[in-house]
């Protein structure tokens, strides 16, 4: 069993999902140790910061038979634009957004500090599911890292979807975020978020703001169909070029 709850959920998923593991690639601008990744039995690329989704887009287009999972940080504080456009294009990727509150979170009673906001962080966090929906994601979910079963189930669904899936995982990082008074230890933090969450599947994404004094709403919010980038590319170019065009990577990947 993996110590990292998210990788653990991913590992469980990959065992059961019925997809050839060889074809699964993970790109991540977050560092994971080789010993945590190796048991997954997939290809792993630790990308320079912020470019995970753009890199994943290239991997997928380079070989449409791949199943690409892109890990990003808080909407990749860097590289948010890649998220927006991958959603718009409906690139066939699974994006796992590890929300560790580089942008802050105020579910606590007292102001939250981070190492980069010593005097407490006053900025508003992203409503990631709402953004993902507006960009055009076909599958959107949010869980805390202790919702292992639910997370695993969502990843399974996302891997079977055709198009851009976004799964937010509330998972505060202990290194930078040790600022909630009385909650110095990482496990305590994770438990804190788990306890302060409420499952509401299908909730309207505009109601998913993470706000002071309110519970974090988790669940699966969007599940819809849209043609992917490659679908549209093939459809359009076959129409224009006819026989001269060779469909790219098969119709459905």
């Amino acid at each position, binding site marked *: 069993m993996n110590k990292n709850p998210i990788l653990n959920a991913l590992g469980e998923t990959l065992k059961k999902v019925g997809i050839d593991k*060889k*074809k*699964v*690639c993970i*790109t991540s601008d977050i*560092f994971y140790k*080789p010993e945590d*990744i*190796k048991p997954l*039995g*997939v*290809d*792993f*690329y*630790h*990308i*320079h910061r*912020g*470019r995970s989704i*753009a*890199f*994943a*887009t*290239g*991997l*997928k*287009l*380079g*070989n449409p*038979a*791949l199943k690409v999972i892109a890990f990003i940080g808080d909407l990749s504080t860097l*590289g948010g*634009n*890649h998220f*927006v*456009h991958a959603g718009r294009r409906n690139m066939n990727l699974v994006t796992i957004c590890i929300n560790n509150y580089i942008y802050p979170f105020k579910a606590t009673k007292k102001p939250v500090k981070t190492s980069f906001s010593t005097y407490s962080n006053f900025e508003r966090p992203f409503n990631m599911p709402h953004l993902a929906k507006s960009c055009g994601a076909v599958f959107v979910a949010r869980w805390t890292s202790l919702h292992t079963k639910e997370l695993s189930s969502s990843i399974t669904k996302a891997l079977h979807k055709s198009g851009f899936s976004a799964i937010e995982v509330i998972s505060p990082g202990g290194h930078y975020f040790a600022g909630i008074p009385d909650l110095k230890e990482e496990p305590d933090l994770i438990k804190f978020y788990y306890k302060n969450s409420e499952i509401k599947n299908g909730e309207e994404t505009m109601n998913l703001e993470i706000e002071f004094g309110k519970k974090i709403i988790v669940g699966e919010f969007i599940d819809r169909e849209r043609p992917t*980038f490659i679908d549209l*590319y093939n459809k359009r*170019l076959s129409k224009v*070029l006819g026989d*001269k*065009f*060779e469909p*790219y990577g098969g119709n459905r990947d």
Partner: protein
Amino acid sequence: MRANPRDVRTGILYIDGDVAAAEGALAAGCKFVGGYPITPSTEAAEAFVRRAPQVGAMFIQMEDELGSISAVMGASLSGKKSMTITSGPGFSLMMETIGFGAMLEIPFVIINIQRGGPSTGVPTKTGQADMMQARWGSQGDYEVITLSPDSPQESFDFTIKAFNLAEKYRVPVMLMSDECVGHMTEKVVVPEADKIEIEPRRLYKGPKDKYVPFKPDKDLVPPMVKAGDGYKLYLSALTHNERGYPTQNIKNSSSRRLIDKIRLNADDIIEIKEEGLEDAEVVVVSYGITSRVAFRAIEQARKLGIKVGNLRLVTVWPFPDKKITELSKKVKGFVVPEINYGQVVFEVERCVHGNANIILVPHGGASVHNPNDILTAIKTIVKDKKRYDGILEFKTELELRIFGSGDNK
């Protein structure tokens, strides 16, 4: 390996340097371009877009240059020969990812159609001022290869060469073209596919469980595998060891090899075109469009009886240190014209070791040199026997204008 006939537009074409570069890429087997439109490189991307779907290649307009080049990295690791096309401002945005590509030894090509000036600069006019940025624009130590074409024909030929070098050495290779060459329309001869030599990807052929991602062959370049081939790769942009795992032990890391694989293979990589060097008093060192304009000055000088040698840098990086040092012992001086206020001249200066005079003929960009400026510099070397440390004349823009700056108006 020979080019695929489907990819090659064989014939005698009348096209501009941008289009020629795109044709070169297609002929070399490029199957993926991620790009974002930017003057004056747009024609190259447009040319690729038109042909790509008919040869099984993909062009995607990414959200920005950061996205473009990151997608190129991914596509290359998936097994497609990949490139991006850009100009100065986009090139600057790509810098970090160039370092990433060098670090993970991803073969890819960047076509940089240089424009004039820093920042937004002069988008529709020429410049050669990205040379130093091309070399070490990203943080940390790494080496790259650059090629400088002086005509649409060379844009075609050198783009093929760029792909071949990228695949051979698993290194970023940049075609450092410029607006003048990019927008210049000339005859380009595209040979038959079986006359075009293509370097295939260095694929690993050993047993699957023995594969070590960064274990080099004898020439210091490790073989590759494709994403999704079941090798359970772990590749990290952190300083890593042969297995691709992070390490802080630099000795065990690939850091040194990233440099050595280029420097120790420099003799194989470097291409220079030389002419009249045997008895030269003065040597003109130039690259790209400037070579061609300089040759006009060289012809004029020869008519005056001056013995001028012509040294064209096809590959500016890696730099032909040995050649310059060797020449410096025999000649009176070097003339270095470039469309910037001095970049490659400092490399010449380093290799000359004070053995000879050096005159920089600078140019602020937006046009090419007036050959008369280069001729004057050649004459100055011959007349003046005094030794100078470094640069003899550094003309200001104002002086240049008085002098006749090569403004074509």
